């Protein structure tokens, strides 16, 4: 009991310490041009939420469109990646043909993918989609492929000796073993997706959070740049750790708690 309070206290304390460090550093610099303090940023954020952006759009539109892009590209890549990964795991021919391709795709630097996608598909949503899919799909595919390979064959044999049907096998043997891989793919893919979307928006997609902070970067306005960055980071933190971590710990209730404890 005491240790649980201790843990929460430490966590809160560390966030507080981080903010204090930031504030102290900004006071030291004493120059709003170099490092604005957390209070300045907070007030800027609040102000920004009421100010229209350079194209006259509402700031909520920027946030919204970024989120929309993230979710659409994320789901598209997850579906494609899972499909490919499972195909590779289940079909020997698929595996042999695609295995060589995957490391190639994984080594390609993100920035190159984004540049090429934008150049070929223009400064449009399609460009962002292609860029994300090109990077994230192989990632998810590899994860799922590893998942199928790591499946415990002895459990499948056991189920078959008990004459378990396809559906029963799928639900109780295949899917639970794949779940950790699905989740880890989820997490990693989501992380990569928003970073690529941010990059793509920076390079000239119209509207979006990335677009905003590139705009302010060009104006050399560090306060605004930091403000938009913080908004973005905060949003992503909430999504990643609030939503995903919750889902994850519920899906893995059957496991020993040490795994869940390690994360959230």
């Amino acid at each position, binding site marked *: 009991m005491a240790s649980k309070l201790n843990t929460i206290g*430490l966590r809160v304390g560390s966030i507080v310490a981080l903010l204090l460090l930031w504030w102290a550093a900004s006071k030291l610099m004493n120059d709003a041009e170099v490092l604005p303090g957390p209070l300045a940023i907070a007030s800027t954020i609040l102000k920004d939420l009421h100010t229209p952006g350079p194209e006259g759009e509402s700031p909520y539109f920027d946030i919204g469109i970024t989120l929309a892009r993230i979710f659409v590209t994320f789901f598209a890549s997850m579906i494609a990646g899972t499909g490919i990964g499972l195909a590779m795991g289940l079909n020997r021919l698929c595996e042999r043909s695609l295995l060589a*391709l995957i490391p190639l795709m994984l080594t390609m630097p993100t920035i190159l993918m984004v*540049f090429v996608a934008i*150049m070929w598909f223009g400064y449009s949503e399609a460009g962002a989609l292609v860029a994300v899919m090109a990077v994230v799909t192989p990632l998810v595919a590899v994860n799922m492929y590893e998942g199928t390979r790591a499946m415990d064959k002895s459990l499948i044999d056991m189920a078959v000796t008990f004459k378990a049907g396809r559906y029963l096998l799928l639900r109780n043997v295949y899917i639970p073993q794949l779940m950790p891989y699905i989740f880890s793919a989820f997490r990693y893919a989501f992380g990569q997706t928003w970073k690529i979307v941010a990059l793509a928006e920076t390079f000239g997609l119209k509207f979006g959070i990335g677009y905003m902070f590139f705009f302010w*970067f060009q104006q050399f306005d*560090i306060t605004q740049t930091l403000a938009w*960055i913080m908004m973005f980071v905060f949003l992503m933190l909430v999504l990643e750790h609030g939503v995903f971590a919750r889902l994850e710990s519920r899906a893995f209730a059957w496991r020993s708690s040490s795994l869940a404890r390690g994360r959230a």
Partner: protein
Amino acid sequence: MHGKLPLKKAKRRVLPDFLSAFLPDFLPDSISRMLPGALTLAAGLVVWKAISLFFYPIFFPGPAVLFERMIAIYSDPASYVVVGQTLARIFEGFVLSMLIGTALGLVMGLKRGIEIFFDSWIMVLLTFPAVCWAFLSVLWFGLSETAPIFTIVLIVFPYVAMNIWAGTKAVEKDLLLMGRVYKADRSLMLRKVLIPQLMPYIFSSLRISLSLSWKIALVAEAFGVGSGVGQQLINWFQNTRVDMMLAWGVSFMIIMVLIDLLIFRTWARRTFAWRPEFAT
């Protein structure tokens, strides 16, 4: 050698019947295993060439064009300076992130309090997109060498820290107790018991660290410094020359893959000779 078990790979049928019907029987197993992969790559090249015929080479270069451009780049001595600058930044960022990350990971593994405290900081750091740090470091450090290195370090060291920290969690308590029973002193325990158990994690951290560092270096250079391969990329991007962009990008990618293979494969074989899968 006595006692070493030879590794036998089970033979599997890798080709479906209809394909193997077309191939001669005497094809060795290793080739038939590589065949589908090789065929895919060959098919990929053909498709690539086919598509490129529909576009201007500067927009969608075919394989031959790309190769040509790469030769052109590397015949120019100035290119080597550019690559050298990028490599230098990568190296510095990589080394710094390994040092800081390992130290932090170890310390987190040692004390539960520190672990919980820094866990949140690492979470936050991992959430920052590379491009954000690139911007911030340019705003803070201007167009100097510090900017890309700062970006690299801040993005990569949390990954290293997490990895090493996981390694400390995986240390076998039984072996530590055994060392204590035989009264091994601290230095002996560290050298012979602790560090060998951390080696796989240090190793994988090195690989991840290097692979991340070079990709981030490109992003950082694209937004700041004014020199290096990343700057070439954004330069050609703004000039809408996909062929040059790809030439620089792909060639640099090949360089980094070669470095990775050269350093890490040979090193792995030596460090992990005690594992049965590496037994010769």
